[in-house]
């Protein structure tokens, strides 16, 4: 018997600042269902990397060098950037 499941894709999430420090890695790779959006990735990150769970709701996402809102689809490249609120200046 075959278990059917939603096809998954792999997404590399590049982290900065407290997110990188908590994850203990510059990049984490997570599996998300195809056709996921940033909002879905936000949830998956918190579940896959427990140390990021307290930050997940506050993370900002970027695709390349542009901010990506929660309704943005994940990019074909499978590469996303995530970081907590900025504090330069």
């Amino acid at each position: 018997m075959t278990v059917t499941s939603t096809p998954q894709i792999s997404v590399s999430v590049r982290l900065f600042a407290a997110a990188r420090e908590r994850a203990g890695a510059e990049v984490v790779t997570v599996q998300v269902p195809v056709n996921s959006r940033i909002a879905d990735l936000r949830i998956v990150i918190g579940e896959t990397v427990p140390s990021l769970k307290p930050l997940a709701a506050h993370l900002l996402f970027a695709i390349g060098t542009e901010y990506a809102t929660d309704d943005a689809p994940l990019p074909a490249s499978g590469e996303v950037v995530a970081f907590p609120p900025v504090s330069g200046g």
Partner: protein
Amino acid sequence: MIQLTHDPIDFSALTESVRSPACGAVVLFLGTVREMTNGAQTLRLAYDAYPAMAEAKIAELEAMARERWPLQEVRIVHRLGTLELGEVSVAIAVSSPHRADAFDAGRWLIDRFKAVVPIWKQEHWADGTTEWVHPGIADPPAESRESGSPLPRERGQG
């Protein structure tokens, strides 16, 4: 021009570079490393960035400011790495024919910079601990001094 640097910012050269006979006003803003924040003492700060996006966002801010105000020259530089007390973390210099525009643009640029440019500050407190500053997540100094905080105190890289 260089917008992110690990070297001390030469704010004199930056200011000099925006002066112009077309202008009656120059405004320079410097962000400097302050020792006390809400009663907590800082020894030094470390700044990290997502460089490609930071430079793209700074260029966008300059373009937006130029649309809003008649600016002659705009220079924005942020320093990365470890900064001692009193050192300059960010310098923004603008020149304009009239002073109101130079003040408005300078202020808008640093306000927007702090909201959108992916750079992060890590406090190195006098008690030996470190802490990333992430506005809106918590009041960092207060939280860092509580035990049992839902966001355990960050430990520094050095």
